[in-house]
């Protein structure tokens, strides 16, 4: 949803963070008082492999301007291999959306470990800037009939 004029528009970004690494990393950013843009809304999931690619579409349909999916580094998954499978799902959905003409940068992925509070804030900063440049998401939004 667009708030106000373009210049004052703030994107709404949904961040799916895996509980054991990325969410803990985000937590660390918080406790370390590292500033990062408030545009993200976090949904905690047990593992990045839990992410159903349909979540991305559902988010865009509901007017979310950008989606970030973040998990443990390869080899560090709490469930051993969840992030590997998640990686495959991520890459196929990302490519497909790109193929269809969905703007590149709307959906982004990262590996953030529990110790990487700074990295998390950097990732959020980058993603927010990217989405700000793209503008509000219009392609998928379910409009009132």
């Amino acid at each position, binding site marked *: 949803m667009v708030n106000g004029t373009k210049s004052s528009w703030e994107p709404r970004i949904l961040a799916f963070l895996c509980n054991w690494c990325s969410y803990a990393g985000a937590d660390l950013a918080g406790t370390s008082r590292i500033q990062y843009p408030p545009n993200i809304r976090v949904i905690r999931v047990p593992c990045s492999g839990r992410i159903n*690619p*349909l979540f991305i*579409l*559902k988010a865009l*349909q509901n007017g979310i301007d950008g989606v970030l999916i973040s998990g443990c580094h*390869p*080899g560090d998954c709490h469930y051993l*291999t969840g992030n*590997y*499978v998640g*990686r*495959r*799902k*991520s*890459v*196929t*959905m*990302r*490519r*497909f*959306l*790109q*193929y*269809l*003409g*969905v*703007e*590149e940068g709307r959906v*982004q*992925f*990262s*590996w953030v470990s529990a110790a990487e509070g700074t990295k998390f804030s950097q*990732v959020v900063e*980058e993603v927010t800037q990217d989405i700000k440049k793209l503008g509000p998401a219009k*392609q*998928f*939004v*379910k*409009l009132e*009939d």
Partner: protein
Amino acid sequence: MEQTHKAIQDSIREKAKELLSSKKVDVIVGFGEGTLPLRATPIFIRSQEEADRLIWNSYCENNLATYLYKLSQFKVGLVVKGCDARSVIALSREKRFKHDQLYLIGVPCQRMVDRRKVKKAVKGEILRVGEQGDEITVEGEDFKKVLKRDDFLYPSCQVCIHRTPAKADVLVGNPAEESPLVEVHPDVKDFEKMSPEERWRYFEKEAGRCIRCYACREACPMCYCTECFVDSSNPKWIDKGLSPSDVDFYHIVRAYHQSGRCSGCGACERACPMEIKLTYLTQKLNQDVKELFGFETGVDPDASPPLSTYDIEDRQEFIK
């Protein structure tokens, strides 16, 4: 062409009789004569006497593997073309039937004729069709036209590489010449030439005709879920109306669910009453799965499905 078809037809009938009399199968699923020109219809033969109803011609376009889910308690003799056999292999990988349950009667396919394209090439209703050599003659009330068969094939047939069914129990014809490998499916190639905005517009225009009948889903042998995501009410992914967002969602996800599973048979496009193009979506995913994970659809029945497995060295340059 008609001689090849007749020979195949006779072989199919003979084989069907043999299988039924020896009780190797309970039912033969093949094609029978349609009541309209340019059409054949799936038939289910259970006795030798009926076996002469089986035919083979340029209109045997259905993917008969889609009926397997209904026949799980029978031993089935299935007439398959190249694409249908790929679907059977994909189904076998997903353990959808027991090995001794299925007997594949493989037909090396001569490519099927696109009846819609033929209809559009003439003005008026087509009442009679004939085939001689590589020509098709169509006749209506006040017209008679001769068309080159090769100009009127289904797009999916034009790019089909493996027209000879793999892993068939018997081949009822001479193996068809393998077509040269295309690195990129032409539909995908054409689509990728467009800019992102053009592509989205094209996709929306095609999907915009959709009437949510789900004929594409039912015609597809790989869509066998007892509860499809569109019917799920908890979670409710999409609503049931014609809102463009919901329709786009359906098409994207149905194609996505075919990743590495779609045989490229084109049954979905043919079933669609609104003539929506679909292969440019499914073939892209097949291609990606091949490029990224080295997985080729419909070739190896023992290969693990690509999205339920992983490789430590999978690409991840897009991940921050």
